[in-house]
């Protein structure tokens, strides 16, 4: 499916989505509470069949987090970028997608490890790389005097 068709399709499933400008892939911002249902549809719908979670990450935009999902289909080879915005900086949380795409389980743990975004209903929500009291290094406000050298 091309970009326009995908856009139209998304509109049909969930009205009121925002579609930011992205030259490369179609991009869609989904509200946090609708994310799970939306992704479930993307995975299981026969025309879309986004069965492959390419990349899962988050971006810290100082006032909010953006969790970014790059989805692709191994059959149709079309790609979409799904984003969700988390405003809560103190206790950021989003529904897990690990039962939709198994690989999300580990990517989510990585995101939890580095950003401190916890994923609700994740089967094994613990840190992947770092010690438990390390802090969340990929947050922009992370400082570690002893280990960081600022030029």
């Amino acid at each position: 499916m091309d970009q326009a068709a995908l856009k139209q399709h998304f509109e049909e499933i969930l009205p009121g989505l925002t579609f930011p400008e992205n030259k490369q892939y179609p991009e869609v911002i989904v509200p946090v509470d609708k994310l799970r249902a939306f992704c479930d549809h993307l995975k299981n719908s026969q025309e879309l069949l986004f069965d492959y979670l390419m990349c899962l990450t988050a971006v810290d935009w100082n006032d909010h987090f953006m969790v970014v999902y790059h989805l692709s289909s191994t059959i149709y080879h079309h790609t979409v970028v799904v984003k969700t915005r988390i405003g809560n900086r103190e206790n950021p949380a989003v529904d897990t997608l690990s039962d939709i795409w198994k690989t999300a389980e580990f990517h989510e743990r990585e995101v939890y490890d580095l950003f401190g975004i916890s994923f609700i209903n994740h089967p094994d929500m613990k840190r992947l790389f770092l010690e438990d009291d390390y802090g969340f290094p990929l947050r922009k406000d992370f400082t570690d005097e002893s280990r960081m050298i600022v030029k």
Partner: protein
Amino acid sequence: MQDEVVKNIILGEDDNYIINVGPQHPSTHGVLRFEVSLQGETIKKVIPHCGYIHRGIEKMSERLTYPQIIHLTDRMDYLSAHMNNEAVCLCVEKALEVEVPERVLYIRTILNELNRIASHQLWWCAMGMDLGALTTFFYGLRDREKILDIFEESFGTRLIQSVNTPGGLMQDIHPGFQKRITEFIKYFRKKLPEYDQLLTGNVIFRERTEGIAIMTREDAVQYGVTGPSGRASGLSCDIRKIAPYGAYPRVSFKEVLRTEGDTLARYKVRIEEMYESMKILEQLTDNIPLGDYTAKMKAVIRLPAGEFYQRVETARGELGVYIVSDGNKTPYRIKFRAPNFSNLFVISKLAVGYKIADLIAISGSLDLVIPDIDR
């Protein structure tokens, strides 16, 4: 929280025998730890633990300019260093909409394929060694040396090339580059059948690998297993075919696919990929166009604000580079979707029910490079 920790420590029932394979273990090829719960020699549960060499490359990259980031990507999957470099370069070039000279495309593709062969050779060494055939290690390294010599002659570096830069290459190839590659292909076409006789055909090797740890296509997609491991399960995931880059649209090659999904299939895909890579090399080596080895770039590279994603096929699978730029000379956020990271965790599904010796064979067949998992 405390209860959760306790729950996680208990792996299985009381009578299970729990051993740690790693972090210091001959077969993890790095600092990776498998927490294995055994009953007799049969595996009941495998939990991979990583993070022993987490260096925070993504965090470091937020303070480095784009040409500087490239030298860090070398250190992720050091066996496909050139592919990692190229991924960042392609992403930056795509963002800047720079037209790269034809010559660069060809040279990059040649380096990619040489790197892929070198990586698969080292994998073959290590796979044989994991299974107890120590001699394979030396044969593989002996042949890999020829490739490293090609790199060294042209760029002065061996394992990691550090020759890519946004817009092209840092230096042109050596005049003897093509000749050496032709010689290498001639040499390696003679040696590769020996690999088959020594290991592939061997009845012990077959017994150890055939029908072991079958990964279905669904598993591969679910766990995001890409690269040769995914293709052994019939998952067509070759980025060189799906989203071609470099000079790949100009060469004809076959995407090696197998449907068995067992350890032997993963082994055979890599062996066949070496043949395919040699085919690509043969098509490209004598046709490198003349021209500049780099495009004109500004001294300070600033990416326009926005998000850029580039997929590249490394020797182990799909590498994704996701750059979020805010218009500065350093990326706002850079994420490497490492192939080994996804490939690793499938082991906890594959190894269950097999013997501990099979765990070693499976992790060998998945061809894990630990720094790529941790980054």
